[in-house]
């Protein structure tokens, strides 16, 4: 029996190996391995039909050189992130309302949450339909109220706005849920004290509620920013990056370069630039906003 020769620690090492193995094999093969491979790939030129050639930093240099379109699709992607603060602003107000001890709040919460649980593709198709220039619900309503119909997906700017509107609609319920959970954590005594001091409602909102929701703001901003930067499905369905590349986002460009133009090294390099952006923004948020956030 090996137990007689091995110390307790050594035995525990083997046991730990057994526990870790099933997960770690998958983790190495499908996560860590590809991450390292992607780093290496970004230094190669590879069209999948011929052997890859080492090109040093050429892919990165090309991405940052004129005419690569980096500025355009970065600007488009940043435009989409407008949906993040807008959703948060709507959600914080609705969460405070839904937090009131009134009847039917559960019902409304459910309604607001339905888009969150829906598939992004289904939502994108639905929005394509209600934004339809000739027969869509939104233009029908605009006409009914005597306004001019809008060609929602017809111009670069309006298509971007459409994606933002859809993102707000889809993400609102999630934001509300996170704010509601955070509101439960604010002690009632703070409000009572403010009430006794005669603070007006909106002042209590500005000076107590909003700052105390700090961790929720930070969390929603960072996760919202990251997921917006990774938006792909709705763009593919609603606009295919158009019109005139008006909704061509960074992820759309990665997909296009990799699986349409078969420029694998270039696409890998671009994916690392996406990572760098996400990483830096998260870090800045933690450092500058995180310091001011109040944690209970």
């Amino acid at each position, binding site marked *: 029996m090996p137990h007689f020769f091995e110390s307790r620690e050594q035995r525990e090492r083997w046991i730990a190996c057994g526990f870790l193995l099933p997960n770690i094999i998958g983790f190495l093969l499908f996560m860590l391995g590809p991450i390292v491979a992607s780093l290496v790939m970004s230094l190669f030129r590879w069209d999948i039909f011929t052997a890859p050639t080492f090109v040093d930093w050429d892919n990165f240099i090309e991405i940052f050189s004129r005419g690569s379109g980096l500025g355009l699709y970065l600007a488009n992607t940043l435009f989409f992130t407008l949906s993040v603060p807008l959703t948060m602003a709507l959600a914080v107000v609705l969460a405070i309302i839904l937090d009131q001890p009134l009847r039917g709040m559960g019902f409304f919460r459910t309604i607001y949450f339905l888009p969150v649980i829906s598939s992004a593709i*289904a939502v994108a198709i639905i929005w394509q*339909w209600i934004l339809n220039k000739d027969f869509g619900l939104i233009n029908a309503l605009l006409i009914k109220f005597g306004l001019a119909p809008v060609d929602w997906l017809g111009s670069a700017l309006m298509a971007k706005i459409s994606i933002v509107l859809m993102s707000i609609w889809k993400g609102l319920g999630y934001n509300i849920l996170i704010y509601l959970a955070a509101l439960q954590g604010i002690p009632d005594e703070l409000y009572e004290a403010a009430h006794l001091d005669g603070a007006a409602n909106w002042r209590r909102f500005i000076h107590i509620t909003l700052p105390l929701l700090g961790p929720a703001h930070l969390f929603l901003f960072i996760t919202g920013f990251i997921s917006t930067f990774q938006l792909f499905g709705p763009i593919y369905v609603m606009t295919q990056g158009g019109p005139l590349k008006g909704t061509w986002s960074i992820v759309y460009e990665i997909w296009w370069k990799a699986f349409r133009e078969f420029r694998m090294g270039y696409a890998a390099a671009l994916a690392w630039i996406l990572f760098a952006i996400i990483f830096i923004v998260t870090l800045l948020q933690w450092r500058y906003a995180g310091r001011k956030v109040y944690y209970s």
Partner: protein
Amino acid sequence: MNEISNWRRLVIYLVLLIGGVVMIAPLYWSLLTSLKSPAEAFDGRWLPAADRIYWQNYLDVVRILPFGRFFLNSLFIAASVTILQVLTSSLAAYAFARLQFPGRDRLFLVYLATLMVPGQVTIIPLYFIIKYFGWIDQYPGVILPAAFTAMGTFLLRQFFMTIPRDLEDAAIIDGASRFAVYWKIILPLSLPALATLSIFVFINSWNDFFWPFIVLSDTEKLTLPVGLTKLVTAHTSDWTRLMAGTMIALLPALLVYIIFQKYINKGIVLTGFK
């Protein structure tokens, strides 16, 4: 709690009602479209004519593309990802939470670090790994890369850390193996966390698009979201049928949510806010 005046109550309900209508209108309008005949699709009526509900769209759409098959594919893939993820990550999480081995904390840090890497970074090498195994257009090609994210290991490790050690220590003194402790003590005590993780992984996998879209192209193998995009590209302005297909993809998920919403809401707050 201070009393809420009737006037304020009215404002509150009015705001919620307007918001609720905005949220529900796109869904309702699409459902309505799916129940209209193609000729009536653009009539702008708000209620379906009771005697003329047009179920034909659903029959048509199932004939154009095998939506029943898509449904089963999505179910099978999401269930497999969930089972694999929960099983392997709970094992690994136990090792990280309770066992001593060299490099444990460093390895856990590597796990954590990968959480920050967006899927787009790994997707290109992943494609070639899957291709190497011959899994392009195969279920394992969709399932396996989604089943080993660090998220599950991280969440469960955090949860296991909160379980007091006393019970385990007693069992080990009584001669129970580590696996018995994991299986008979830790897992039963972690049911809420396991349920939360399962629901999460399942919903994410069910709605996942980018990776299945890249791996799958054979119609018989598609998941619902990928199948929907095929319908969109093939029948761009066939709105009544398009909406019928969308409803087939959407309504079961919404139904599941409405039934399990308490659990799901709690899970989102737990996982999203820890």
